Structures are given as C-alpha cells and as structure tokens.
C-alpha cells in the first residue's frame, strides 16, 4: 500500500485545523465513529484526547449499543444486553479517568448454581469457604480447584499482555510485524518449556478435556464449564472452548483476576461515562443519526451519509459496527477487493444467546439456596453437569432454542439501589442457547414468546413464586438483538471466538490491524482483536492505529 505513506505524510504536515481551512465544506470532522457502542466511544475518546475533532454517530436514540441501561418499565433500569463488567481494561479506565465521569464498578460475591436434585453449589470469594463448599462434592476437587486456578492465572498472565496490542501479521516481513512477533515469541518463551506446550494446547482443547484433568464431580465441572460457552455456538465438549473460558476469566476488578462486577446504574453507566469523557475532550455524540453509506472516493474514505441524506465529511472513519454490517451493509462492495468481501461474507457470526429482562415486584424465593448465603447476590445458574449444557447445545445445532437452557441469572438490584424501586427487583437472565434462525425459518413473535416461556418455566421450576412476581418482561432472541442494536445474527461478540477468528485472523487475515482495504476506513468494534465482551480493547487498539497513521505518537495508551 504505497499510497498510505503519502497520505500520512500529508496529514502529518497539515494539522487538522489547516485541513478544515483548505476544504471548509468537505471536512466537517477529523474522524467519524460509526456507532456509539462502548468500543466506538473508547476510540472516540482516545482520538479526542489527541486533539482530533471527533463525532460519534449513533442510529438509535440512545448510546451504548449493547452496553446500555434503559428504563423499559417505569422505575426499573434494565441492563438489557450486556449485564456484568469484568473484561473492561483497567488501563482504559485509568487513562480516560472514567470514575471521574461517573463510573463505579462494584465486585459481586460469588455465584450459585441450583441442581436438579434440589441441591446447590455456591462459589465464594473467601478461599476457605470456597474450598469447603467444593468439598461437599469432592474433597479432591476442592484441592484441585487451586491447581486449576493457578493454571488459569498462568494463562491470564500470558494473554493479558496481548489484549492492548495490535496483532502482528505472521505473514509480513515488515519491521513492525517482525518486532511484534518477536516480542510475542519472547513472552511465550518466558513461560518455560512445559508451560509453552500447555499454553498452545490450552488454545486448541475443549473445556471438557481441560476440566476432566482436574475434577471428578459432574456438578463442579458443569459449574465451571458455564463460562466456556457464554455467547458461543459451541458446547463444552467442543475443542476451542477452553479458550472461551479464558476469555471470561481474563478480566479483573481492582486487580483481582477473574472477578466480575456490576456497573452502578447498569451497564449503560459505562457508555455514559465514556460519552462524558468524550465531551470533556471536545468530542461530539449524535444520536438518531444512522449511517446509511460510507462515502469512498478514489479508494479513500471521505465521509458518511446519514439516513436522512445529510453528509458528514472526514478523512478518518472508524466503524464500531461488526465486520459484516460495516463492509456489506454501509459500504459499497465495489469499493472493496472481491477477495476481501468474500472473506467478510464467510466471517462466522452466528448468535447463540437470548436474554430476558424482568421487573419483579419482590425478591423471588429460591428454596434450594440457603436464605443467608451471600452467593445469592452474585450470578445464579441452573445446571448439573457439562452433559446437561452440551445437550442444550445439541438443540442449537438442530435449529431450535434449548428446551433445557443454561441460564446466567442476576438480580443486581440487590446491591445496586438505582435499578429498581425499594423492595422490588430487576432481574437479568442470559440464556444459552438460541440459534440465529430456527429450523422452521426466521424467528417469529410466537417463537420468541415460546422461547420466553421455556426460560420462565425453567426458572420457575426452581423458584415457586417467580412467575407471580413478574411485572414486566422483555424477551430477546438473536432476532431482537440484531434488530435493536445491530448485532448481526445476534452474536454478542460481533463474531465467534474460535481459533480461526482470533488474533491475526480477526476479522479477516491480513486485515487484523484495525485497517481496511479502503484508506482511512477502520474497524474498532468487537469484530477485531481481542474480541467481544465489554472490554474496550478493540476500541483503544483501533485508536492507536489511527493515530499512528495520522503520524501522531501522542495519545498512546
């Protein structure tokens, strides 16, 4: 790409205000970000901090994308897409000073799983309480849990270094790629021989094989395997799910690796804090501004056209939309190489999850869990074994929602007083699995309601008064996720987290460094490395690459 060097030189020589003077009508902004999801906002913040004039265009009347809180029923705030916070990179938190802009993250206390036989398994932050809890199922597992945790922290320690870095292209002989590959190699070599083998194997093995090495109790394995399939169109027996589990472990709250927390006020608080930070740096957010087209001239991006026909111009456009929506919907295929388009078409983005958001007029009872058990305030699950989860996945494969779903339930209003009126509660139920399309065809409203009933019945079997306490319920299948916030096929990670779509393969081999075949056009959403979850890392990485292309060394992370 010889042209880029030229452009970069030009932009570097002419500072943004100068460009505006020369082309007063053409360039309304230095950078346009399409989509006000958390990653888009992160990119915008970093660019604004570096002095660029930035606008974020959001099609919906509210910001946040899937990082959103909405009052869908009077008095109740729903985090109606993403619902917990752990992966958000602490470096971004600090650099953008988000606490100053109103973000508070509160860790939650463990989790609890209800089993078919009327029992429960809880996990606790306290090591001894946790060990004794596991001992109820297996003394050996209780001790092996420490071994397992050590292995997970080794994996987290290794991967953490690469979350806020741009993946090097292994096919490239460019100095930068070679250097980055070498430093990846050095970090890898530093693990020591045995750990090197184990790390590679970890990325290719199934969660079930991994857990079988450590545990004998089906319940313990089932409980842990839950995080290996969240948002994923795979079962715990599928190779590659050990990595998905790591993807859910590598977050942290206040330095505690693997901890999860609530954003006070719902997940939308993250988006709000980012928007506040952006505005403080002079950036702009426009809602109800759906982008219809990305305008490309002579192989270079020069702005966007909104649905209402308005055109906005900028030499840099970053899309927070997923790779398919970006390149197949709002861009013209003729502006892109055919091979690239083909690869984008083949990007795997099947949704696998549904969501219920429920307003409750009181705390539902869960007779299986002791009344005074603090783990009730964390996430609650229903499962008995990896097999039960795997069977739920079999339903997905055959094009139907799981008849016995795996659910991740939370009642965050127990510790966040801002979410529901006193004494009443907001409940979030994440459901695995729900296919993007049913065997019978596309989802219909009737299908959606039947899916909702399946889940409510599943929970009702463990909570006798649950159904009676429901005052309002929002049921979301992959169809609703796509229609409302534009996650193609309802995939919460903007693309499946399998080895063929990670690191330098994400989203498309050769285009994993946030750039696209069109000059000035970037991706900054979860379709890029390191992938989904409310992490912010794709956004930050994209911003760094944009600034690099603009010849800015400042604004570094």
């Amino acid at each position, binding site marked *: 790409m010889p042209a880029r060097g030229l452009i970069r030189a030009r932009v570097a020589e002419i500072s943004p205000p100068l460009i505006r003077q020369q082309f007063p009508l053409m360039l309304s902004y230095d950078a346009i970000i399409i989509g006000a999801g958390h990653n888009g906002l992160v990119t915008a913040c970093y660019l604004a901090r570096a002095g660029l004039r930035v606008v974020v265009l959001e099609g919906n009347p509210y910001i946040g994308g899937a990082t959103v809180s909405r009052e869908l029923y009077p008095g109740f705030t729903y985090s109606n897409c993403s619902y917990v916070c752990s992966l958000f990179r602490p470096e971004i938190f600090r650099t953008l000073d988000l606490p100053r802009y109103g973000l508070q993250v509160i860790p939650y206390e463990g989790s609890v799983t209800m089993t078919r036989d009327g029992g429960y398994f809880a996990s606790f932050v306290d090591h001894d309480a946790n060990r004794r809890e596991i001992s109820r199922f297996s003394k050996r597992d209780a001790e092996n849990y420490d071994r397992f945790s050590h292995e997970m922290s080794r994996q987290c320690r290794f991967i953490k270094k690469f979350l806020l870095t741009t993946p090097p292209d292994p*096919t490239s002989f460019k100095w930068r790629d070679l250097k980055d590959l070498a430093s990846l190699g050095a970090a890898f070599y530093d693990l020591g021989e045995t750990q090197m083998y184990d790390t590679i194997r970890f990325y290719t*093995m199934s969660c079930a094989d991994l857990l079988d090495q450590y545990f004998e109790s089906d319940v313990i394995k089932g409980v842990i395997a839950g995080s290996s399939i969240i948002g994923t169109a795979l079962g715990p027996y599928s190779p590659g799910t050990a990595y998905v589990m790591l993807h859910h472990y590598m977050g942290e709250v206040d330095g505690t690796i693997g901890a999860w927390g609530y954003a006070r006020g719902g997940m939308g608080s993250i988006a709000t804090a980012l928007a506040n930070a952006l505005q403080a740096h002079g950036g702009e957010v426009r809602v109800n501004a759906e982008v219809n087209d990305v305008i490309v001239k002579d192989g270079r991006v020069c702005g966007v056209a909104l649905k209402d026909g308005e055109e906005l111009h900028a030499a840099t456009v970053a899309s927070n939309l997923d790779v398919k929506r970006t390149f197949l919907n709002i861009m013209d295929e003729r502006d892109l190489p055919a091979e690239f388009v083909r690869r984008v078409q*083949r990007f795997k983005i099947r949704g696998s999850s549904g969501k219920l958001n429920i307003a409750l007029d009181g705390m539902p009872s869960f007779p299986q869990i002791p009344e005074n058990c603090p783990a009730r305030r964390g996430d609650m699950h229903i499962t008995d074994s990896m097999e039960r989860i*795997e069977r739920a996945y079999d339903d997905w494969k055959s094009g139907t929602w799981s008849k016995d779903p795996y659910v991740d339930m939370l009642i965050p209003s127990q510790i966040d007083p801002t979410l529901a009126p006193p004494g009443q509660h907001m409940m979030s139920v994440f459901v695995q699995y729900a296919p993007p399309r049913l065997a019978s065809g596309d989802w219909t409203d009737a299908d959606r309601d039947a899916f909702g009933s399946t889940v409510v019945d599943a929970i009702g079997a463990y909570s006798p008064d649950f159904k009676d306490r429901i005052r309002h319920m929002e049921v979301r299948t992959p169809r609703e996720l796509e229609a409302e916030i534009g996650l193609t096929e309802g995939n919460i990670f903007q693309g499946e987290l399998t080895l063929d779509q990670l690191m330098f393969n994400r989203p498309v081999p050769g285009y994993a460094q946030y750039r696209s075949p069109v000059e000035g056009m970037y991706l900054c959403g979860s379709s890029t490395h390191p992938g989904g979850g409310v992490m912010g890392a794709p956004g930050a990485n994209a911003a760094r690459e944009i600034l690099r292309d603009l010849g800015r060394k400042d604004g570094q992370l």
Partner: protein
Amino acid sequence: MKSVRYDAIVVGGGHNGLVCANYLARARQRVLLLEAADQVGGAAATESFAPGFRVSSCAHLVYLFDPSISAELKLADHGLVWSAVDLPSVALSQERAVLSISSDPTLSAGEWMSGEHKRFDALMARMTRFASVLQNLYTRVPPRLRNRRGDIVALVQAAWRIRRLGRDDMRELLRIAGMNIADLLDDELNDDRLKGMLAFDAVLGTRLGPRAPNTVFTWLHRLVSRAPAAHGGIMHPLGGVGALCDALSRSAQAAGVEIRTGARVESIMCDADRVTGVRVADGEEIGARQVISNADPQQTLLSLLGARELDTEFVRRVRDVPMAGTAAKLHLAIDDLPTFVGVDPEQARGRLVIAPNIDYVERASNAIKYGEYAPQPVIEITIPSLHDSTLAPPGKHVLSAIVQYAPYTLRAGWGAHRDEFADCVIAVLAEYAPDLPDKIVERQLLLPVDIEQRYGMTGGHWHHGELGLERFWMWRPTPGAAQYQMPVEGLFLCGAGCHPGGGVMGLAGRNAARAVLATARP
C-alpha cells in the same frame, strides 16, 4: 546387571513395530521383535471370521502408508501386491444419484451441480498443498520448544515451509487449521452428498462431529495421502491389510530382525532410570540396551514400564490422554453381491460412504458424547472380495464396514445392546442396499471394547489415543514424550500413539527408529 544380548527389543509386531525394527536392523543393530499373538500385524491384520471368509480386522483400506518406506524396505520384493489402487469414494444417497470421486479428478462422475466440480478441485488443490506441509512434518521427529540448535532449526524449517506456501495460502492455513470442517465445506461447496462424505472423512476415527473445531486438521491428516510425496489414493493389498504386515515381516527378517511370536511382554525392566530389557510372560528376561514399544502410550508407560519409574505430573499427562475408541467394525459374510442402489460395478469396488449430509454426520456424533451409540450411524463400506479373491469363497463376498459412532463404554452396558446395534447398522445398510439382509450368512461386530481385547489397544482406539490439533506433533501423545524417547533412558515408543498418529502409515515406526539411532550415536 545381566548381560545385554540385544541392542534393541521391539515390543509388539504391529506395522509400526515391524517398520521400526527393520530400520534398526538395517543400521546394524541386533534387534528382537516380540509379538504376543501368533502372527504379526497387530490391528493391521487379515483374519477369518467365518469359514472361508477373511477380512481386514481393523483398517480395511490403506491410504497413508508412506511410499518411501515401501520402497526402502522393498515390500514389493517381499510379496506385497496391491489388489486395487486408486479406489473411488462413493457418496451414497437416498434422494439423489450417488456421487463418486477418486484421486484422479478426470474420473469423477455422477451428478454434479454446476461449477461444483471446479470448486471441489480448487479446494482439494489447496488442501493438498497444506497436506504437503503436514506430510513433511510427519516424516520427522518433532522438535522440542527449547533453546537447542537442532530444535530451533527444526522449528524454523517448519515455519519456513508454511511461509513458502505464499502469503495467501499461509494466511488460509493459519486460519483454517483450528476450524471446523462443516463451516469450511459450507463456505466452499454446495453439494450435500459431497460435503457429507468429506465431513465423514474428517471425523473418521475421532470422537468429534463435523461442527467441532479442529476437524479441518483431522481432515488434513487424512489428506496427507494426497501430498505429492505420499502415494495419493486409496489402496487395498492383495490378501487384506494383513498382507502388508506379512510383507513387512518378511522384509524385517531379511534385514536380520529376529521375530518371536507368541511372546507376550509382561514388563519392561529398568534400573536407575535406564531400561535393561523386558520380561516375557513365561518369566524369561531378555536384556537389551533399548526397548521400543509399539504398544499404546498408556499401556507402555503405565502397565509395561509402570508409573513407579516415572514422575507424577508425567503420569497424570499420560493418564489424561483420551484413549476411548469411537469406531466399530462390522463384517458380513454374504453369499451374493448386494445391490447398492445407483452404484455401478466399478464404483462398488471402492469405498461406499453413508454420510448423506453434514447434519447427518453431526447428529450421529451426538451419541458418543453421552455414552450412547449412534442410531443412525455413519458408515464406510468396502467389499474387498470384488478385487481380492483370496478373501471369500468363489461367488461369495465379504463386506467390511467401519461404523461410527460406537462408544467404548455404552452407558447402558454393551451386553444386550451389542446385537441391537448390529441390527441397527444392518438396517441402515439396507436402506441403501435393500437386498443385503437376505444375503448375510454370518456377521461379526467388533466394538472398541473388542478391539481393545483382541489387539491390546487401550480403549480400542485406532490411533492409540485421540488424534487432534491439541494432540499432534510436539503434543503427541503428550509433551515430554513426543520425540519417541520416553523419560526413562533407552525406552522409546513407536506406535500410532506417537507423532504422526494412526492410519496404516509406518511413519511413526521409521521416525522412532531415527530417534533411537540418534541416541545411539551421541
């Protein structure tokens, strides 16, 4: 210490053991090969299962046997004759015409969708290039991830071979290596029959379904046969797969290997972290500087050697190798040729595959996860007597079928369900060959548990342990044991449990011999 009589003892006369012993003898080592059964061959055997009917008991075709080994060991001179080469693969279908493909694309026939032929050829051409990279790795002892010159050179060479594919191919290889076969086939092809058959090829001998990641790798493993350096094609030795081992055995003896059958090795002896020899069932102790085991890793290390001589973490790793087989074998003695609907006589000589589409294969694979057998199994059928008259009385035939998925342990217990499963398989066969059931004279079902018992392969797994991306090369059978040499000095593995895995290939045996010889001259 007892006096050392042999340089090397090879435990087990499977094809890899025979190959390994042969190469050692050619390097002027004094080699003794001990085989528990009355004939060599292990699971690569031809056995009689009904009066006058003989069949290849496990593998019933040869894809992967390395041609350079054939040449170096002069197997043709020792009686190896192929009764058929380049057999076609035929995808059976109930709704549509059958689809036949062979390694020679011009022979492809049947009803092709427009352009599908081209797409298929392009895909195979690319996959063949990738398989060549793999084939090259397969012929070498895997390196270790450590700071030694030889290891670094080997790693750089492997990386260079991938780089040399060119940027596009390299990117594609790095992308699809960990991918699932279903997505790859859906991306590249349209024909359900074709996709079903290829998906079947990818999951054959594994516990995975086509939607499971890593199945592109297992497909590549089979495609190694298409690499230019490999032979390319599906072959059948005259006299069944056992005939290959007979030739190997004659070649080995000619090279000076002493072969003793009926000699079951009971334990591998060692002293102060060094192998001293073996003890056979009658109590005789035979000394040797090196012992090379063709038995599977678990059996070799945990039973023959014993965990006591090993370290705990290593024992854990060996214990954790998934060893449960998933494929059963059904042998039918038939008094007349059955009519597979739509299959012409030329096609019938080949391998007939019942895997009509990807979803069918995927559904079949669900069962194995829960310790059940697949009620609608995927099946690979051969009727070797069509081109090999040594296997059945004149006018009669042998049908040999690989049936997947059959668990090692059936949750309900195999006892009463064994016949039920066989009936189930025959019912599926009858859907494609309605006249088959009436022609069956005798039937034999070999479940993984039977294969374990007959051939001493733990779990009855063809590959001596699950093969997959997480268990190949430096990871096969497990890190710390992937270079054929075991932690105890002088002990080596040479079976399918090691790199490059199973499928009658012979490379594990030759690589192991190289590893043995490398330590012999330090």
